[in-house]
């Protein structure tokens, strides 16, 4: 069952096509990583799905609610963390979370316990009575995460949730997102590919307002995997000679050499797995490293959208 479903969505700002027929589908309970280069349409998509902007055409449902005609029925079902969450500087975190709890209709006792629980979760108990106006960006981000979770939303939209955090804070937020798996649907836009690799079940890559690919993370890595091996040895002349020999073999596509490492791209992984090590022994090489290369999400991303910078 889909938690988020977008069909043929367009959003035009004059001549600029921010979204150009975007299709998107997020199954309930998954953690969805939304990737794309600068200006691809990620933030526009999240703004439309949270009701802050209207599409030029197309349709979108979130948690069973038609976003375009949602009225007041959408906000209770979603949580939203913008890229730079903004707060009233004169409030403190306790007042702020309590105010949000009131907006969501929580009782006074629920608000009190939920506020305490969330402040502990984002490690802000010690600053719970300090004015938000003096907070760093990382502190604001953590408070924004707490704010997005106050009412146990069905669908959580996170725009760069960990980008302003230090390594410890980032780990905590990612752990938090991981813990939400199965309880809520999380749509996470980020430029940190390692975060997506770590927590996302499904990855959607968007470019120029269109979905380029959407797939489960493992399938994606498999589908775009380059069958490659790397071999490292100290004896560089012998390694280079062996590389030249490998190029003549029918199951080898290319061989490149750099800094004492051979990168061998093969046509047949099975043959390579048996023949490479044996070949190295015959060539008299003492290997420091032999590795079947697994592609990273970054490799896949760069294959799909070229070398445009990502955000």
């Amino acid at each position: 069952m889909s938690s988020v479903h977008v069909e043929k969505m367009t959003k035009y700002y004059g001549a600029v096509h921010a979204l150009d027929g975007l299709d998107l589908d997020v199954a309930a309970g998954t953690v969805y990583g939304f990737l794309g280069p600068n200006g691809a349409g990620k933030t526009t998509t999240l703004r439309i799905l949270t009701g802050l902007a209207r599409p030029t055409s197309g349709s979108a449902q979130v948690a069973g609610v038609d976003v375009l005609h949602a009225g007041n029925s959408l906000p209770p079902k979603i949580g939203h963390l913008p890229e730079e969450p903004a707060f009233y500087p004169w409030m403190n975190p306790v007042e702020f979370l309590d105010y949000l709890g009131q907006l969501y209709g929580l009782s006074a006792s629920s608000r009190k316990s939920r506020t305490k629980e969330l402040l502990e979760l984002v490690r802000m108990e010690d600053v719970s009575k300090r004015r938000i106006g003096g907070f760093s960006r990382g502190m604001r981000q953590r408070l924004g995460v707490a704010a997005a979770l106050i009412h146990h939303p069905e669908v959580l939209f996170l725009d760069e949730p960990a980008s302003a955090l230090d390594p410890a804070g980032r780990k905590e937020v990612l752990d938090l997102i991981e813990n939400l798996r199965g309880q809520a649907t999380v749509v996470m836009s980020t430029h940190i590919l390692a975060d997506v690799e770590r927590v996302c079940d499904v990855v959607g890559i968007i470019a120029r307002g269109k979905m380029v690919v959407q797939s489960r993370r493992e399938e994606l890595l498999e589908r775009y995997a380059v069958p490659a091996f790397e071999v490292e040895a100290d004896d560089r002349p012998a390694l280079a000679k062996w590389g030249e020999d490998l190029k003549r073999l029918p199951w080898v596509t290319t061989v490149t050499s750099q800094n004492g490492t051979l990168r061998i791209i093969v046509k047949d992984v099975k043959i390579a797995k048996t023949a490479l090590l044996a070949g190295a022994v015959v060539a008299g090489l003492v290997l420091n490293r032999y590795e079947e290369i697994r592609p990273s999400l970054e490799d896949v991303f760069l294959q799909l959208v070229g070398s445009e910078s990502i955000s």
Partner: protein
Amino acid sequence: MNFFTVFRKEMLEQVRTYRFLIVAAVLVIFGLTSPALAKFTPEMLKAIPGVPGNIQTLFPTPTVVDAVGQYVKNMVQFGVLLALLMTMGVVVQEKERGTAAFFLTRPVSRVTFLLAKYAAMAVAFIASILIAALGCWYYTYLLFEPLAWEPYLALNGLILIDFLVYMSLSLLCSTIARSNGIAVGLAFVSLIIVGGIGALPSIGDYFPGHLISWGASLVLKGNITAWPALWISLGVIFAALAAACLIFRRQEV
């Protein structure tokens, strides 16, 4: 939806950001000092070294008319400016800061968002005018004579309506604008249009400024009435708020 929750937050914001204090301080100062200024201005002029001793003959003995006139003049001049200044940034600053986007994904309708702000500003002005009016009444009583309550309340009610007109126009400007600078510009254009045209003879009878003449006339037992200006002012308030709500509902924040 959630009007009173948002309204309470707005009131708290007025207090914490000193907006309420500023409005109250300015209006109360002018309320309290107006009768005293009316009473003692001739005395003060006389006390200035070098001023001819017969200067007092140029000034008739101050009366309650001068006290009311001074009060009305000060309240309207500074109150209208305050109404514009305090309201012109309330929406556009939230759009610029990002708080509008942050809160509009919560169960807060855009109409609630706007009207709670307007209501909170209106309450701040009502409370400030009330304190200022009480102060002015007391000093007028001490220095001149007591003012009749009913017409005096009517005068202050009409001053409030005049302020509410400018507040609603300023809120509309703040809603339309994409930046604070544009909101300021639009608000002052509205002041020039409403205040400037309202100062013209005959056509000014239909503008909010005429309400003040009516109010002063009630207190001083004159014969000016301004029912058309009252209905037009209420109409402008309603139309400006309705326009702000309609525009904000369609606006991307």
